[in-house]
């Protein structure tokens, strides 16, 4: 090893002299800089990660995760440097020179490796330098930055960057050295990507997260796992530690890197490889080395045929295409990459569309979308790599001169290569198709749709990839330098990733961009294909123009300088070229103008920043109206004419208003669709004399002055006609609520009165960008006037409702209410609905071609309107409805309606929403769920969602909370609780655990991503992770501690007091009062902790030892450690003294409790001795995670006998 140092020094000098080293350094520096700039708010309206919340841009965890993701990207650079470190000696033939010197193999390899390692370390460290510099820039927003901790910049180096570098570097280095080719290095890089993707698939199932964190090579998943529940406070201040799964992950992968390197390099030698006989040796085996037979020989006389355009197309192009296809498909790299892609697809197969770990039927549209999405990454790699290979293959193998001197038309050769690559792409799509269908069959799903597969892959996917192939070809032909060409392509992909930050959101600005599409079983491709076709045509124009540019600049022969290429280009620029270029230009301008007219003139295009500016403008202009009293809606009568096939809708209707205030009202502020909406207000008039004094088309607000003020108690009717018709091509998929099959419109589209505060910006950082003060948040429940309005609609109380809907004759149209009549007129089908009791001012209109399944529960008609093939879960939903109606009316109070309807709508939106007796339910949620009734781990989420929405008929549509903090506790939390009880009644307490495990995970992750402030449930400000997840957990814990009956009796009393009441409306305090009333004094602290505070436990079982007693029982001794903390809204934790009832359990091997009792623990460390019947397997504290536990995995330990 004595020569190691000189070699190391030489390697360092070589690398530092290379231009590419400095280019890479600059690129990584710039990436770190840009990422941090975006996070620190340098580009208004374009943030990254959590830059809109309260996490500092330079928080240690943020720096760490930025480093982790950028350094995994930098794997490409590591591959280039490490893979070439020794391989280039073989490429240039210098290896044999080293072989003849007295340098040992160890010194040579060690020196080379260490040299590259040192240089790459510096190179990667420039990421951190870039980030640090960004925080010092004057444009960085001071309020987005915390203190710059040196450790925050150094620690990522030790924890992620250097281990990743060592691991990938060792593998790339040894492969390049041993196999002497660069191909295997690239393939290894792709396989690592495969590992990363597979582990990402695994994380979708909670049970596999640990495994995923362990096997993901770059430590991203391990870091996520380690810090997944970190609060804002922790994120801002804590340094992730090298412990737990992170430590194991790092050790595992450093070990793998080292082992691969040692094993591979053991057989390294400078001389010729043994495995492959050298050319000269092989040559000796050739017989017939005598002089050529002298048969008065001369070259065979074959008339040289000129390649005409026609014959080129017929023969030359196919011949080149065939050769290109074979040369790509024949490489090991291609095969391994394709296999890696298939492997990742198979890894994702069990998770397609899964929710709560429960499978979904692999319907074709979903499989294409999810598998195709993932597989496209591999397509991208293959296209990028092999476009370059095909263009460079002759030159790189030394045949460039020979081939360039052949009488082939250049265009035909490149067209042939292009088509060869397209054939490769088509082959890969075929692989995707076959894999996808096999996965479908593997799920036991036989309703295959080969037609849809073929249509999608050939008409939707292939042209998109064809554009990309064209781009890759043009880039490489024009750049005419392979590595630089790759850099350009990577920059193009990066531009796609950072579209918003670069201001390229408009689809006219990024090559190949289009509005995208969502396939729905119900609505097929809907209206999406047209816009995509327009954009594709536009980009084809660009492709044509680029191809012409490439044709002018392409190098044939040896003249590679730009000067001579430009000279040549001038001579090539003949009439035909000129006219094609002109045609391409005309195409681009014409299509571009047409699309621009559609997206920006007919429709309104806004960047996120502009949209936010508009919201800010609304608030600034009209905030003062919030205090203006307005009349309230008392009745709504709607006549809707719907033309699904044209995607048009006309609302005609009357809204009745009543002045409930104690002052006369003379000015009405009428909200109408703003000019940016595809709507037209055809009539708008009140039945009392009035004038429209101001029209604001930007914000959609008309000011109406009444000639005579509306006295308190007076009423007025507003009649209106509003027409909706989407206008041509939009930049995004836009208006999906109007669909050919599956229209879903709601009352938000109709005129209304008064200031709309839900339009206000919520993120304080964004508000600041637009010159607004921090948002005050919601009112406290005891604030003056808080009980005057409910939280769903501020300008109405309870209303009466009637609707008539006309639709296509083959569709059913629905709105809340009871069917009053159905008739046909003018070739259209009409339905009339009316409500017989007051409802909230909150209703919807749906129309589709449905199949209807009807059932009854007592006197309630249950109807499920579903897409005919989506029948699998309909019975389940009906059963869930019956159980829900039964449980709720038994425990809370009567159901107010005589019908209950579930309506399937297309998957453009994925939620179910409870309107009065009518539940629109997305096709993506449960209609295609595949619940295995025999699997105790499967969560029956169709039942859960149905029960949740059914519960809203009580919690929202009977009792509605005041517009103040805690409002959604009265609706969402109670609906969640009610659904859990229905589930528990069906499946038992034990099987609820899986579901609650997911809910706990979602709550803990939700709070770590909080944008403003975490609040206790009773003060929740419409925060989903609190009112759904924490709410459900807390209510479930409460009923566990005080009993289901007691909780239900409290809820019944609460409902009895407040149903259909208001104003004044109830607040969370009213509910809490009832809950306290049914809770024994000793547990009041628990109620407080659950609902009025943020309390977190870390319950751990340290050890459990058992000994068998003589009577066959076992004595179990438990060592427990219980930590209880209280967190503030930013997640800052303070320890709380323990005086809590905690469940202690001993479980047998099946997980059935042998002992389960609540003990009052007053000390963090406790020891308990219990006696149980039966052989104990696991034991611990809060074994079923009934409390909010920061680490639910360590509550039990295996019992040692």
């Amino acid at each position, binding site marked *: 090893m004595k020569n190691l140092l000189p070699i190391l020094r030489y390697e360092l000098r070589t690398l530092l002299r290379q231009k590419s080293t400095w280019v890479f350094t600059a690129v990584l520096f710039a990436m770190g800089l840009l990422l941090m700039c975006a996070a620190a708010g340098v580009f208004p309206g374009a943030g990254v990660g959590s830059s809109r919340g309260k996490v500092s841009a330079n928080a240690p965890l943020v720096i760490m995760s930025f480093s982790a993701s950028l350094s995994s990207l930098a794997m490409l650079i590591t591959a280039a440097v490490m893979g070439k470190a020794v391989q280039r000696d073989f490429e240039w033939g210098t290896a044999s020179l080293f072989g003849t010197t007295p340098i040992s193999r160890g010194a040579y390899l060690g020196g080379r490796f260490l040299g590259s390692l040192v240089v790459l370390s510096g190179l990667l460290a420039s990421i951190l330098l870039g980030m640090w510099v960004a925080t010092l820039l004057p444009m960085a927003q001071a309020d987005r930055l915390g203190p710059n901790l040196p450790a925050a910049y150094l620690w990522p180096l030790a924890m992620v960057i250097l281990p990743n570098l060592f691991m990938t570097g060792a593998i790339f280095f040894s492969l390049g050295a041993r196999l002497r080719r660069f191909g295997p290095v690239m393939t290894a890089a792709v396989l690592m990507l495969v590992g990363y993707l597979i582990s990402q698939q695994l994380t979708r199932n909670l049970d596999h997260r640990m495994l995923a964190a362990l096997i993901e090579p770059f430590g991203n998943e391990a870091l996520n796992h380690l810090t997944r529940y970190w609060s804002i406070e922790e994120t801002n201040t804590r340094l992730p530690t090298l412990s737990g799964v992170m430590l194991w992950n790092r050790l595992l992968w450093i070990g793998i890197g080292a082992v691969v390197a040692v094993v591979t390099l053991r057989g390294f030698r400078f001389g010729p490889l043994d495995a492959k*006989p050298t*050319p*000269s040796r*092989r*040559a000796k085996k*050739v*017989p*017939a*080395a*005598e*002089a*050529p*037979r*002298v048969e008065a*020989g*001369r*070259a*065979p*006389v*074959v*008339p*040289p*045929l*000129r*390649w005409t355009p026609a*014959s080129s197309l017929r*023969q*030359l192009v196919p*011949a*080149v295409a065939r*050769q290109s296809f074979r*040369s790509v498909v*024949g490489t090991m790299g291609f095969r391994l990459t394709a296999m890696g892609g298939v492997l990742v697809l198979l890894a994702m197969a069990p998770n397609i569309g899964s929710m709560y770990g429960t499978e979904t039927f692999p319907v074709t549209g979903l499989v294409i979308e999810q598998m195709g999405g993932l597989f496209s990454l591999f397509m991208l790699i293959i296209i990028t790599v092999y476009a370059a290979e095909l263009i460079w*293959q002759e030159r790189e*193998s*030394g*045949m460039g*001169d*020979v*081939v*360039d*001197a*052949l*009488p*082939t*038309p250049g265009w035909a*050769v490149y067209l042939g290569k292009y088509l060869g690559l397209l054939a490769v792409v088509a082959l890969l799509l075929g692989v995707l198709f076959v894999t996808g269908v096999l996965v479908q069959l593997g799920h036991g799903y036989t309703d295959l749709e080969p037609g849809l597969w073929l249509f999608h892959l050939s008409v939707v996917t292939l042209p998109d990839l064809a554009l990309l192939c064209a781009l890759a070809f043009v880039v490489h032909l024009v750049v005419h330098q392979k590595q630089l060409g790759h850099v350009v392509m990577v920059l193009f992909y990066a531009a796609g990733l950072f579209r918003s930050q670069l201001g390229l959101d408009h689809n006219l600005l990024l090559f190949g961009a289009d509005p995208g599409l969502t396939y729905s079983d119900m609505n097929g491709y809907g209206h999406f294909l047209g816009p995509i076709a327009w954009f594709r045509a536009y980009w084809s124009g660009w492709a044509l123009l680029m191809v012409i540019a490439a044709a002018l600049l392409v190098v*044939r*022969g*040896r*003249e590679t*300088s730009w*000067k*001579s290429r430009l*000279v*040549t280009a001038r001579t090539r620029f003949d009439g035909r070229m000129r006219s094609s270029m002109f045609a391409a230009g005309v195409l681009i301008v014409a299509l571009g103008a047409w699309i621009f007219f559609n997206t920006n003139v007919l429709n309104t295009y806004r960047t996120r920043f502009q949209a936010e500016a508009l919201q800010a403008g609304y608030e600034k202009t009209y905030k003062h109206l919030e205090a203006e009293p307005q009349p309230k809606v008392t009745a709504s009568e709607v006549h809707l004419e719907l033309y699904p096939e044209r995607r048009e809708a006309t609302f005609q209707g009357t809204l009745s208003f009543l002045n409930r205030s104690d002052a006369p009202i003379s000015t009405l502020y009428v909200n109408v669709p703003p000019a940016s909406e595809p709507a037209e207000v055809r009539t708008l008039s009140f039945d009392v004399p009035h004038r429209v004094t101001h029209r604001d088309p930007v914000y959609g607000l008309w000011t109406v002055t009444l000639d005579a003020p509306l006295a308190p108690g007076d009423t007025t009717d507003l009649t209106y006609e509003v027409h909706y018709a989407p206008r041509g091509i939009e930049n995004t998929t836009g208006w999906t609520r109007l669909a050919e099959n599956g229209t879903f419109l709601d009352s938000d589209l109709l005129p209304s009165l008064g200031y709309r505060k839900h339009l206000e910006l919520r993120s304080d950082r964004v508000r600041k960008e637009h010159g607004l003060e921090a948002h005050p948040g919601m009112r406290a429940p005891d604030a003056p006037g808080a009980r005057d309005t409910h939280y769903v609609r501020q300008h109405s109380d309870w209303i009466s409702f009637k609707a008539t809907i006309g639709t296509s004759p083959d569709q059913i149209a629905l709105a809340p209410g009871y069917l009053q009549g159905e008739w046909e007129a003018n070739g259209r089908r009409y339905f009339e609905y009316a409500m017989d009791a007051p409802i909230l001012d909150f209703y919807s209109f749906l129309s589709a071609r449905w199949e209807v399944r009807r059932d009854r529960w007592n006197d309630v008609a249950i109807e499920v309107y579903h897409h005919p093939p989506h029948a699998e879960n309909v019975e389940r939903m009906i059963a869930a409805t019956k159980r829900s109606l039964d449980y709720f009316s038994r425990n809370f109070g009567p159901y107010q309606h005589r019908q209950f309807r579930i309506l399937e709508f297309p998957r453009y939106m994925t939620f179910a929403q409870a309107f009065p007796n009518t539940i629109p339910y997305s096709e993506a949620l449960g209609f295609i769920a595949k619940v295995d009734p025999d699997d105790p781990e499967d969560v029956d989420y169709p039942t859960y969602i149905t029960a949740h929405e059914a519960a809203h008929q009580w919690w929202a549509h009977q009792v509605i909370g005041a517009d103040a903090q805690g409002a959604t506790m009265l609706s969402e939390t109670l609906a969640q609780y009610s659904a859990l009880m229905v589930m528990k009644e069906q499946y038992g307490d034990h099987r609820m655990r899986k579901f609650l495990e997911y809910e706990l995970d979602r709550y803990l992750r939700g709070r770590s991503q909080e944008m403003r402030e975490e609040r206790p449930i009773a003060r929740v400000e419409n925060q989903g992770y609190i009112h759904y997840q924490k709410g459900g957990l807390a209510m479930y814990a409460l009923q566990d501690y005080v009993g289901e009956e007691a909780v239900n009796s409290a809820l019944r009393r609460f409902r009895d007091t407040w149903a259909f009441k208001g104003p004044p409306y109830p607040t969370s305090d009213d509910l809490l009062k009832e809950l306290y009333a049914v809770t024994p004094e000793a547990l009041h602290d628990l109620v407080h902790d659950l609902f009025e505070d943020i309390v977190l436990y870390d319950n751990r079982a340290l050890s459990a030892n058992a000994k068998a007693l003589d009577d066959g029982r076992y004595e179990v001794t438990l060592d427990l450690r219980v930590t209880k903390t209280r967190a503030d809204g930013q997640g800052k934790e303070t320890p709380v003294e323990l005086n809590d009832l905690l469940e202690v359990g001993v479980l047998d091997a099946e997980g059935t409790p042998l002992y389960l009792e609540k003990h009052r623990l007053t000390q963090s460390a406790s020891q308990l001795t219990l006696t149980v019947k039966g052989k104990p397997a696991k034991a611990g504290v809060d074994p079923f995670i009934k409390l909010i536990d920061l680490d639910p995995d360590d509550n039990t330990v295996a019992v040692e006998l």
Partner: protein
Amino acid sequence: MELKIEGLSKHYAHGGVQALNDVTLTIPNGMFGLLGPNGAGKSTLMRTLVTLQEADRGRVELVLDDGEKVDVLRDKERVRELVGYLPQDFGLYPRATAEGLLDHLATLKGIRDRKVRKETVGRLLELTNLSAAAKRPLGGFSGGMRQRFGIAQALLGDPKLVIVDEPTAGLDPEERVRFHNLLTEIGENVVVILSTHIVSDVSDLCGRMAVLHQGRLKMEGTPFEAIAAMKGKVWRTLVDKQQVTQLQETHRVLSSRLLAGRNQVRAWSETPLEGFEPAEPDLEDVYFGVMRGYVGAEASSSGAVASAG
């Protein structure tokens, strides 16, 4: 068949080299040897003739037997139909077979009929004595086999102008002989330009020759005449190593080479030299004479005399 080169010049901006300097040359049917040291501009000239490079100035015209005149610098497509080219260094797809690659190249060349193509490929492989290796991957070929494959592809499509750039470099003597035989056979009906820095290649094969040095044409003619013109002007002597340097200062030394442990020095002189005996001139003497500027068209203008090689 005739190739006329007039005033051809080429300057490389990168490195500031005048690769071709006003070269004028007429090349008839048969084998034509282009001789010159490395870097003389031979490869540049050849690549210009096969359309791979552009010239700064000058004209090149190919006159076919049927009277068709082809402007080589402009009408590149026509040129590519007429030439066969074996570059100085070239590689082959290592995994392709000789037959497969030749067939592919034949397609590109324009031999479209599958049967004709198969026949052509077969005959060319036979001609170059590669039939036995037809189905073997090219990665396993020896240097000689590769060169023969190179000539096979250069002969595809009945070229009128065959250009071979340093084809014998790296071949062992036996392979070289074989290769020479092959070249002579094909040189009967077409123009074959053979560039080389090995003098014996030219003396063995070529009816006509030219010497190129630093981008300039130094001499053109038949080897025969050139040697004849040297008759009586070449002298030789055997000296010790130390004396060689001294002789180089005082005499017009053509070459110095070891012979049985001593140095044989050959020098050029119109008159007898003291201590030298007359020697029979050969093409090597012509070459060195031209290179050193003692003889040839532009002898007077040649610059400093390089040391003997």
